[in-house]
Protein backbone atom coordinates (compact mmCIF):
# COMPACT_ATOMS: atom_id res chain seq x y z
CA UNK A 1 0.00 0.00 0.00
CA UNK A 2 1.22 3.48 -0.84
CA UNK A 3 0.26 6.94 0.28
CA UNK A 4 0.54 9.67 -2.32
CA UNK A 5 0.67 13.26 -1.11
CA UNK A 6 -0.20 15.50 -4.02
CA UNK A 7 0.17 19.27 -4.05
CA UNK A 8 -1.67 21.30 -6.69
CA UNK A 9 -0.80 24.93 -7.35
CA UNK A 10 -1.27 27.41 -10.14
CA UNK A 11 1.38 27.66 -12.84
CA UNK A 12 3.69 30.59 -12.10
CA UNK A 13 2.15 32.61 -14.95
CA UNK A 14 -1.39 32.29 -13.56
CA UNK A 15 -2.76 34.81 -11.05
CA UNK A 16 -3.31 33.31 -7.58
CA UNK A 17 -5.84 35.73 -6.04
CA UNK A 18 -6.21 33.63 -2.89
CA UNK A 19 -2.48 33.57 -2.22
CA UNK A 20 -2.25 37.29 -2.93
CA UNK A 21 -5.06 38.10 -0.48
CA UNK A 22 -3.52 36.00 2.30
CA UNK A 23 -0.15 37.64 1.63
CA UNK A 24 -1.71 41.10 1.93
CA UNK A 25 -3.40 40.11 5.20
CA UNK A 26 -0.17 38.77 6.68
CA UNK A 27 1.66 41.93 5.65
CA UNK A 28 -1.06 44.06 7.23
CA UNK A 29 -0.64 42.03 10.41
CA UNK A 30 2.98 43.20 10.37
CA UNK A 31 4.65 39.96 9.46
CA UNK A 32 7.21 41.98 7.57
CA UNK A 33 9.17 39.04 6.23
CA UNK A 34 6.40 37.67 3.99
CA UNK A 35 7.66 37.61 0.40
CA UNK A 36 5.06 35.49 -1.33
CA UNK A 37 2.13 33.19 -0.59
CA UNK A 38 0.90 30.40 -2.82
CA UNK A 39 -2.42 28.82 -1.94
CA UNK A 40 -3.15 25.46 -3.48
CA UNK A 41 -4.86 22.14 -2.90
CA UNK A 42 -3.52 19.13 -1.07
CA UNK A 43 -4.60 15.54 -1.55
CA UNK A 44 -3.74 12.36 0.31
CA UNK A 45 -4.57 9.33 -1.76
CA UNK A 46 -4.03 5.71 -0.76
CA UNK A 47 -3.13 3.32 -3.53
CA UNK A 48 -3.08 -0.44 -3.55
CA UNK A 49 -0.37 -0.50 -6.26
CA UNK A 50 2.18 -3.33 -6.12
CA UNK A 51 5.25 -1.10 -6.31
CA UNK A 52 6.25 2.54 -6.08
CA UNK A 53 6.86 2.90 -9.81
CA UNK A 54 3.38 1.84 -10.79
CA UNK A 55 1.91 3.97 -8.00
CA UNK A 56 3.78 6.98 -9.35
CA UNK A 57 2.57 6.25 -12.83
CA UNK A 58 -1.00 6.12 -11.64
CA UNK A 59 -0.66 9.32 -9.63
CA UNK A 60 0.71 11.15 -12.65
CA UNK A 61 -2.06 9.87 -14.83
CA UNK A 62 -5.04 10.75 -12.63
CA UNK A 63 -3.52 14.00 -11.40
CA UNK A 64 -3.25 15.24 -14.95
CA UNK A 65 -6.66 13.93 -15.93
CA UNK A 66 -8.70 14.97 -12.91
CA UNK A 67 -6.91 16.74 -10.09
CA UNK A 68 -5.47 19.57 -12.16
CA UNK A 69 -6.50 21.66 -15.11
CA UNK A 70 -3.44 21.41 -17.34
CA UNK A 71 -4.15 24.85 -18.73
CA UNK A 72 -3.45 26.59 -15.46
CA UNK A 73 -2.30 24.23 -12.75
CA UNK A 74 0.74 22.07 -11.96
CA UNK A 75 1.24 19.35 -9.37
CA UNK A 76 4.02 17.66 -7.50
CA UNK A 77 3.80 14.61 -5.31
CA UNK A 78 5.49 12.35 -2.81
CA UNK A 79 4.88 8.67 -2.46
CA UNK A 80 5.59 6.59 0.62
CA UNK A 81 4.96 2.96 1.43
CA UNK A 82 2.51 2.47 4.27
CA UNK A 83 1.05 -0.47 6.12
CA UNK A 84 -2.70 -0.68 6.58
Amino acid sequence: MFLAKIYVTYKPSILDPKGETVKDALQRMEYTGIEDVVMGKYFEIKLSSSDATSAAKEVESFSEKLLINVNMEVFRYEIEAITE
Partner: protein
Amino acid sequence: MKAAVITFPGSNCDLDMYHALVDEFQIETEILPATITDLSAYDAIFIPGGFSYGDYLRTGAIARFAPVMAAIKAADQQGKIIVGICNGFQILTEAGLLPGALQTNTQPGFICDITGLKVVNTTSKFTNAFTKSINQFPIAHGEGNYYVDAATLATMQANQQILFTYTDNPNGSIADIAGVTNVNGNVFGMMPHPERAVDALLGNVDGRAFFSSIIASLVNQQEAIKA
Protein backbone atom coordinates in the same frame (compact mmCIF):
# COMPACT_ATOMS: atom_id res chain seq x y z
CA MET B 1 -31.11 54.61 18.59
CA LYS B 2 -28.07 54.84 16.38
CA ALA B 3 -26.87 51.91 14.29
CA ALA B 4 -23.57 51.15 12.57
CA VAL B 5 -23.19 48.89 9.55
CA ILE B 6 -19.59 47.73 9.20
CA THR B 7 -18.22 47.35 5.68
CA PHE B 8 -15.21 45.10 5.24
CA PRO B 9 -13.45 45.02 1.88
CA GLY B 10 -15.65 42.53 0.00
CA SER B 11 -18.82 43.04 2.08
CA ASN B 12 -21.72 43.30 -0.36
CA CYS B 13 -24.91 43.37 1.72
CA ASP B 14 -23.95 46.58 3.57
CA LEU B 15 -26.28 48.77 1.51
CA ASP B 16 -29.11 46.24 1.83
CA MET B 17 -28.80 46.38 5.62
CA TYR B 18 -28.55 50.16 5.51
CA HIS B 19 -31.72 50.46 3.41
CA ALA B 20 -33.63 48.06 5.65
CA LEU B 21 -32.67 50.06 8.77
CA VAL B 22 -33.15 53.52 7.26
CA ASP B 23 -35.92 53.16 4.66
CA GLU B 24 -38.08 50.63 6.46
CA PHE B 25 -37.44 51.39 10.16
CA GLN B 26 -36.21 55.02 10.08
CA ILE B 27 -33.20 54.17 12.25
CA GLU B 28 -30.30 56.62 12.18
CA THR B 29 -27.57 54.51 10.57
CA GLU B 30 -24.04 54.98 9.33
CA ILE B 31 -21.97 52.70 7.12
CA LEU B 32 -18.46 52.51 8.56
CA PRO B 33 -15.28 50.98 7.13
CA ALA B 34 -13.46 48.16 8.92
CA THR B 35 -10.64 50.57 9.72
CA ILE B 36 -12.80 52.37 12.33
CA THR B 37 -11.56 51.89 15.89
CA ASP B 38 -14.27 53.57 17.95
CA LEU B 39 -17.91 52.48 17.99
CA SER B 40 -18.89 54.11 21.28
CA ALA B 41 -21.47 56.35 19.57
CA TYR B 42 -23.60 53.42 18.37
CA ASP B 43 -26.27 51.38 20.15
CA ALA B 44 -26.37 48.52 17.69
CA ILE B 45 -23.73 47.18 15.31
CA PHE B 46 -24.57 45.22 12.18
CA ILE B 47 -22.02 43.13 10.31
CA PRO B 48 -23.52 42.49 6.89
CA GLY B 49 -23.19 39.67 4.39
CA GLY B 50 -20.70 39.41 1.58
CA PHE B 51 -17.29 37.96 0.95
CA SER B 52 -14.90 39.83 3.23
CA TYR B 53 -11.42 39.73 1.73
CA GLY B 54 -12.87 37.43 -0.90
CA ASP B 55 -13.38 34.73 1.76
CA TYR B 56 -10.37 33.26 0.04
CA LEU B 57 -8.66 31.69 3.05
CA ARG B 58 -11.69 30.73 5.13
CA THR B 59 -14.92 32.69 5.56
CA GLY B 60 -14.39 35.47 8.07
CA ALA B 61 -10.81 34.38 8.79
CA ILE B 62 -9.07 37.54 7.62
CA ALA B 63 -11.85 39.92 8.67
CA ARG B 64 -11.43 38.97 12.33
CA PHE B 65 -8.03 40.72 12.27
CA ALA B 66 -9.42 44.01 10.92
CA PRO B 67 -8.95 47.07 13.16
CA VAL B 68 -12.71 47.40 13.82
CA MET B 69 -12.84 44.06 15.62
CA ALA B 70 -11.32 45.51 18.81
CA ALA B 71 -14.10 48.11 18.87
CA ILE B 72 -16.70 45.40 18.29
CA LYS B 73 -15.31 43.42 21.20
CA ALA B 74 -15.45 46.55 23.36
CA ALA B 75 -19.10 47.02 22.35
CA ASP B 76 -19.78 43.45 23.38
CA GLN B 77 -18.21 44.12 26.79
CA GLN B 78 -20.73 46.94 27.19
CA GLY B 79 -23.56 44.60 26.30
CA LYS B 80 -24.45 46.42 23.08
CA ILE B 81 -26.43 44.69 20.40
CA ILE B 82 -24.21 43.12 17.73
CA VAL B 83 -25.74 41.36 14.75
CA GLY B 84 -23.88 39.30 12.14
CA ILE B 85 -25.80 38.23 9.06
CA CYS B 86 -24.36 35.58 6.72
CA ASN B 87 -20.69 36.58 6.32
CA GLY B 88 -21.18 38.66 9.48
CA PHE B 89 -22.15 35.47 11.34
CA GLN B 90 -19.04 33.77 9.97
CA ILE B 91 -16.88 36.69 11.13
CA LEU B 92 -18.41 36.67 14.63
CA THR B 93 -17.74 32.95 15.05
CA GLU B 94 -14.16 33.31 13.75
CA ALA B 95 -13.67 36.18 16.21
CA GLY B 96 -14.97 34.05 19.09
CA LEU B 97 -17.90 36.37 19.82
CA LEU B 98 -20.29 33.55 19.03
CA PRO B 99 -19.79 29.83 19.61
CA GLY B 100 -19.28 27.34 16.78
CA ALA B 101 -18.10 27.59 13.19
CA LEU B 102 -19.60 27.62 9.71
CA GLN B 103 -18.54 24.88 7.32
CA THR B 104 -19.16 24.17 3.66
CA ASN B 105 -22.76 23.11 2.99
CA THR B 106 -23.14 19.33 3.11
CA GLN B 107 -24.06 19.48 -0.54
CA PRO B 108 -21.27 21.80 -1.68
CA GLY B 109 -22.22 24.85 -3.68
CA PHE B 110 -23.75 28.25 -3.13
CA ILE B 111 -27.52 28.22 -2.63
CA CYS B 112 -29.90 31.14 -2.94
CA ASP B 113 -33.43 30.28 -1.94
CA ILE B 114 -36.26 30.94 0.48
CA THR B 115 -36.24 28.72 3.54
CA GLY B 116 -38.57 28.17 6.47
CA LEU B 117 -37.31 29.32 9.86
CA LYS B 118 -38.82 28.26 13.14
CA VAL B 119 -38.61 30.79 15.96
CA VAL B 120 -37.44 28.68 18.90
CA ASN B 121 -37.34 31.35 21.55
CA THR B 122 -39.43 34.54 21.46
CA THR B 123 -38.05 36.09 24.63
CA SER B 124 -34.74 37.28 23.16
CA LYS B 125 -33.69 40.75 22.05
CA PHE B 126 -33.85 39.52 18.47
CA THR B 127 -37.11 37.56 18.42
CA ASN B 128 -39.53 39.22 20.85
CA ALA B 129 -41.71 40.69 18.08
CA PHE B 130 -42.27 37.49 16.08
CA THR B 131 -45.92 36.47 15.98
CA LYS B 132 -45.68 33.57 13.53
CA SER B 133 -43.74 30.50 14.59
CA ILE B 134 -42.68 29.65 11.01
CA ASN B 135 -41.25 32.46 8.87
CA GLN B 136 -39.88 32.50 5.33
CA PHE B 137 -36.35 33.89 5.10
CA PRO B 138 -34.02 34.25 2.11
CA ILE B 139 -30.72 32.41 2.29
CA ALA B 140 -27.66 32.90 0.08
CA HIS B 141 -24.51 31.11 1.09
CA GLY B 142 -22.07 28.30 0.35
CA GLU B 143 -20.69 27.91 3.86
CA GLY B 144 -23.61 27.96 6.22
CA ASN B 145 -23.30 24.53 7.79
CA TYR B 146 -23.22 25.40 11.50
CA TYR B 147 -21.12 23.20 13.76
CA VAL B 148 -20.53 23.11 17.51
CA ASP B 149 -19.28 20.27 19.67
CA ALA B 150 -21.83 18.32 21.71
CA ALA B 151 -20.93 19.88 25.05
CA THR B 152 -21.27 23.43 23.76
CA LEU B 153 -24.50 22.53 22.03
CA ALA B 154 -25.95 21.26 25.30
CA THR B 155 -24.97 24.48 27.08
CA MET B 156 -26.44 26.57 24.28
CA GLN B 157 -29.69 24.67 24.51
CA ALA B 158 -29.79 25.05 28.28
CA ASN B 159 -29.14 28.80 27.95
CA GLN B 160 -31.75 29.19 25.21
CA GLN B 161 -29.07 30.56 22.87
CA ILE B 162 -30.63 28.95 19.81
CA LEU B 163 -33.19 31.41 18.43
CA PHE B 164 -33.98 30.01 14.97
CA THR B 165 -33.92 26.56 13.43
CA TYR B 166 -34.48 25.54 9.80
CA THR B 167 -37.71 23.73 8.99
CA ASP B 168 -36.02 22.12 6.01
CA ASN B 169 -32.28 22.15 6.76
CA PRO B 170 -30.62 23.48 3.57
CA ASN B 171 -26.95 23.20 4.55
CA GLY B 172 -26.50 20.40 7.08
CA SER B 173 -26.33 22.59 10.19
CA ILE B 174 -26.17 20.64 13.42
CA ALA B 175 -29.55 20.42 15.18
CA ASP B 176 -31.02 22.44 12.25
CA ILE B 177 -29.56 25.57 13.83
CA ALA B 178 -30.00 28.77 11.81
CA GLY B 179 -29.39 31.57 14.34
CA VAL B 180 -27.72 31.77 17.74
CA THR B 181 -26.78 34.27 20.45
CA ASN B 182 -23.87 34.41 22.85
CA VAL B 183 -24.37 33.53 26.50
CA ASN B 184 -25.27 37.10 27.42
CA GLY B 185 -27.84 37.34 24.66
CA ASN B 186 -26.51 40.58 23.11
CA VAL B 187 -24.59 39.13 20.16
CA PHE B 188 -26.54 37.33 17.46
CA GLY B 189 -25.62 35.64 14.20
CA MET B 190 -27.59 33.88 11.48
CA MET B 191 -27.02 32.75 7.90
CA PRO B 192 -30.50 33.79 6.59
CA HIS B 193 -31.02 37.39 5.47
CA PRO B 194 -33.75 39.31 7.36
CA GLU B 195 -32.76 42.51 5.52
CA ARG B 196 -33.92 40.91 2.27
CA ALA B 197 -37.41 40.34 3.66
CA VAL B 198 -38.65 43.76 4.76
CA ASP B 199 -40.15 45.32 1.61
CA ALA B 200 -43.60 44.25 0.38
CA LEU B 201 -42.70 45.08 -3.22
CA LEU B 202 -40.12 42.28 -3.14
CA GLY B 203 -42.81 39.87 -1.95
CA ASN B 204 -41.65 38.98 1.57
CA VAL B 205 -41.91 40.90 4.85
CA ASP B 206 -41.18 38.08 7.31
CA GLY B 207 -37.85 39.71 8.22
CA ARG B 208 -39.53 42.82 9.66
CA ALA B 209 -40.19 41.13 13.00
CA PHE B 210 -36.44 40.70 13.46
CA PHE B 211 -35.78 44.44 13.25
CA SER B 212 -38.91 45.23 15.29
CA SER B 213 -37.58 42.94 18.02
CA ILE B 214 -34.26 44.78 18.17
CA ILE B 215 -35.96 48.18 18.25
CA ALA B 216 -38.33 47.04 20.99
CA SER B 217 -35.54 45.68 23.15
CA LEU B 218 -33.50 48.88 22.74
CA VAL B 219 -36.50 50.99 23.68
CA ASN B 220 -37.06 48.81 26.74
CA GLN B 221 -33.41 49.10 27.65
CA GLN B 222 -33.48 52.89 27.39
CA GLU B 223 -36.69 53.10 29.40
CA ALA B 224 -35.14 50.87 32.04
CA ILE B 225 -32.13 53.19 32.22
CA LYS B 226 -34.38 56.25 32.57
CA ALA B 227 -36.43 54.58 35.30
